[in-house]
């Protein structure tokens, strides 16, 4: 009998520890039900195009032309492609050495990195160096690269907000580091209290952990809160004092649904603070084409920008990037187009702006519809979605429901979400997948279903929830639905 090559016992323990609820149990169950013919509404992942959002026209025109450059020689190309798309395709092709099919510089095409730097400068008012901008196959890969650079072993701790996007917890597990949680205050609109930070760091150090970095997600995921300038200053000051690398996940910077706290980048605040802090805090900022009003998740386009990282470290990060040769070139072009969209006067400008505004305004309305809808449900309290793409209502589960969950050997919010799925086809992610205070339960849903479908979805949820609550609050205690 041959010995087992790779059995479960000999698998890397770090891999076993990884959890990623976004595509975990609920999603797998939803996929099973879908195969059986049930209509499923997937609100488990921020995947706008999967829920009917249309791609912006201009970037698709440009990239299509780049894919098939022989079209540019065809006299009839102008019949279905506008002149500015044709010109832009030629521009991007000229930035490559051999078109879309050649590995680019491992950091991404220099010409596109320059466009990104220019975008950052326009946004923040400070110059940005293209040499410190690395393009990646989606922001997630960039996050993984940076965390892999930081984490040496389980003695290294990374401060992560709770609730958090589980890419962070999964990656820290994978690389054998320690997650140091800091709690966001639900009652204060998911605000960040520096005292919580201090406490978390102190506790971690007592356990012998060296806290190396701090992750902020702004706007937040799953919580949606937008950090104020004052808050960002506190955070940066904290990182300065505690010698932490600040990791600024800013992938939702275009998704802002209130006017009190517009997006302000960590870099801008850092540089506004002047020396010594502006020169002393190490910062890595992440962005992507997957979110915003672009929603081009499938392209896998993203970048990270490094500030105050020593040249030798930059070289090491470059070296690791070079092992994977280069990020995908079409994704890089999407990124270029995102940071450098059509301008007033361009042929495609009007259409582009109409499409973009349409999406953003609709998202803003849907954020409100969902928040209000959840708040109208029994035992459900929901903070307003200030930004990003999610709603994270708190569900107060009655003790009988928690008991029933225990009997079914499910975490209580998983139990609730599975019942929700089976009753309504709505596929969410239980709050336990993101982290929450002990005994407090949530679920995460996206605000992405089409606006016209929203009322029906919220009605369906309300009906399920109110029946669930009636059942489990009822002293007569029915058996499971």
């Amino acid at each position, binding site marked *: 009998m041959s010995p*087992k*090559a*790779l*059995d479960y016992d*000999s698998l*890397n*323990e*770090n*891999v076993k520890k*990884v959890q*990623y609820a*976004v*595509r975990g149990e609920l999603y797998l169950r939803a996929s099973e039900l879908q195969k059986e013919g049930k209509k499923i509404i997937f609100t488990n992942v921020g995947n*706008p195009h*999967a829920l009917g959002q249309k*791609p912006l026209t201009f970037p*698709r025109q440009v*990239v*299509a*032309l780049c*894919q098939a*450059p022989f079209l540019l020689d065809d006299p009839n190309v102008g019949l*279905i492609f506008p002149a500015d798309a044709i010109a832009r395709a030629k521009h991007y092709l000229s930035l*490559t050495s*051999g*078109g*879309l*099919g*050649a*590995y*680019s510089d491992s950091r991404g095409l220099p010409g596109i990195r320059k466009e990104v730097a220019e975008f950052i400068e326009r946004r923040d008012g400070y110059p940005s160096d293209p040499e410190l901008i690395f393009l990646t*196959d*989606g922001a*997630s890969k960039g996050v*993984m690269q940076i965390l*892999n*650079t*930081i*984490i*040496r*072993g389980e*003695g*290294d701790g990374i401060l992560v907000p709770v609730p958090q996007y589980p890419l962070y917890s999964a990656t820290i597990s*994978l690389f054998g580091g320690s997650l140091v949680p800091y709690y966001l205050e639900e009652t204060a609109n998911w605000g960040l209290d520096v005292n919580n930070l201090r406490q978390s760091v102190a506790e971690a150090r007592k356990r012998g952990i*060296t806290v190396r970095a701090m992750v902020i997600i702004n706007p937040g995921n799953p919580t949606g809160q937008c950090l104020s300038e004052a808050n960002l200053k506190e955070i940066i000051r904290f990182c300065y004092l505690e*010698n932490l*690398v600040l990791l600024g996940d800013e992938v939702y910077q275009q998704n802002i649904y209130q006017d009190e706290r517009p997006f302000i980048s960590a870099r801008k605040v850092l540089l506004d603070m002047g020396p010594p802090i502006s020169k002393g805090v*190490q910062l890595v900022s992440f962005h992507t084409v997957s979110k915003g009003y672009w*929603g081009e*998740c*499938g*392209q896998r386009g993203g970048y990270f920008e490094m500030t105050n990282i*020593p040249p030798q*470290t930059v070289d*090491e*990060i470059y070296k*690791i990037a070079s*092992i*994977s040769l*280069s990020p995908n070139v079409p994704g890089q072009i999407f990124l270029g187009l995102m940071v450098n969209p059509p301008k007033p006067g361009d042929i495609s400008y009007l259409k582009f702006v109409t499409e973009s505004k349409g999406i953003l305004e609709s998202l803003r309305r849907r954020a409100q519809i969902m928040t209000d809808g959840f708040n109208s449900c029994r035992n459900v309290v929901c903070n307003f979605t200030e930004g990003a793409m999610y709603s994270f209502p708190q569900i107060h589960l009655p003790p009988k429901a928690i008991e029933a969950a225990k009997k079914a050997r499910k975490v209580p919010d998983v139990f609730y979400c599975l019942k929700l799925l089976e009753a309504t086809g709505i596929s969410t992610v239980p709050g336990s997948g993101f982290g929450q205070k002990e005994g407090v339960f949530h679920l995460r849903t996206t605000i992405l279903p089409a606006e016209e479908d929203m009322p029906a979805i919220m009605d369906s949820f309300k009906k399920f929830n109110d029946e669930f609550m009636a059942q489990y609050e009822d002293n007569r205690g029915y058996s499971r639905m």
Partner: protein
Amino acid sequence: MRRIVARRAKDCYLALTSPSSFFHRSLSSTSSSSPADSMGSSSKSSSALSVDSINPKVLKCEYAVRGEIVNIAQRLQQELQEKPGSHPFDEILYCNIGNPQSLGQQPITFFREVLALCDHPAILDRSETQGLFSADSIERAWQILDQIPGRATGAYSHSQGIKGLRDTIAAGIAERDGFPADPNDVFLTDGASPAVHMMMQLLISSESDGILCPIPQYPLYSASIALHGGTLVPYYLDEVAGWGLEISDLKKQVEDARSKGITIRALVVINPGNPTGQVLAEDNQREIVDFCKEEGLVLLADEVYQENVYVPDKKFHSFKKIARSMGYGEKDISLVSFQSVSKGYYGECGKRGGYMEVTGFSPNIREQIYKVASVNLCSNISGQILASLVMSPPKVGDESYESYLAEKNGILSSLARRAKTLEDALNSLKGVTCNKAEGAMYLFPRIELPQKAIKAAEAAKTAPDAFYVKRLLHATGIVVVPGSGFGQVPGTWHFRTTILPQEDKIPAIVSRLTEFHQKFMDEFRD
């Protein structure tokens, strides 16, 4: 005799005793991080992200393909742009990397038509589109779009890749091998490299986990093993026997490693080979399969060059086909087969498309593989589509078939010619022997470096093959990679060049290389 440890492997092995000391260092520095101290200390020498404090595995990794020599070349290129005539050559010729389209190779038209239509499906409804695209590319685009929920090519897909595309790939594998393939065994990835990383992550828990790698090898493997904290266990390919693989040597290396307390977990085979270019003989492949089965090793079959075979007496046979034809099924051998859209005749490196076919693993391992894949959500959709096109290109009778075939054969026959021309040129140089490139995209000539040259290299604090390669670059503008980047028998020197510059550039390359070599040998003759 061949009692050697490739320098890379030794480095990896030795280096891995240091992480724990790093850990102790970081713990002792904890006490200095309290606010009061930090405010007081002006030197932030233990700054969070300095080379002293980053992951030591990152420091250990090397990847010569885009290493030092390329940095120098880029500098020279810039100098040429700023001051034309400042060097004895007009242009830099990058022969360091298998990047065909950067050197003028054209993409396959049909593939690009389909990709363009999938990128911008809105035009499929326009009548003008019929005039710009072939009918079968339009049909294929519709077919693919119908397999994508909502026709949304901008949406994250299933984490293994779009089901319909995996069906196509599985059918392509079955047609190639004559044995069935299951779409659920296919994991589409951003190129083959991320798939290799994924497997290393699963297989390696610590430095006592060893992975058998061929020497010379493609340095993705050494780098990935170092990055994941494992140990590279080398097995030597026999240069004199056309880079053949001796099972007895394999067994010896395994025993050796085991006696040092290493658990061997997997065997990497690159077929056709990189940098060596050999296509394994079938009986060699059968020996390898049996070996893995007996020893309980995962067979990692890097088959990205499967469409690059240039000699009539050899054929590519996938390891899956070999294993199945030996009567071995899921219970007998754990096999991971890697394929990519970057090589072959399509050469679509920049697209980052590829997959691994995973067979012979238990369901709970499969779950773990899926879980790791899901953290990154999915690979880029355009790359997924391309992978499916590569595994099911136009067939006889399709409108685009003739032109597709002409493009494909044109590229492959040109590659074969260039391989031969460069091989002959290298063999004509005094002190240089070069094995035939039976497949892949590279030549890996061996150079007898005179003692005088070796001493000069030592004085310049460079490895002798790097010394030669740098001189070559400065004299001719040709960029190749020193053999030490791939591993070689100590005391032997090689470099890897690609066969990719366009045919019209080859004569100039040959003459410049010849001239340089003669001058170099004259200068350093003992």
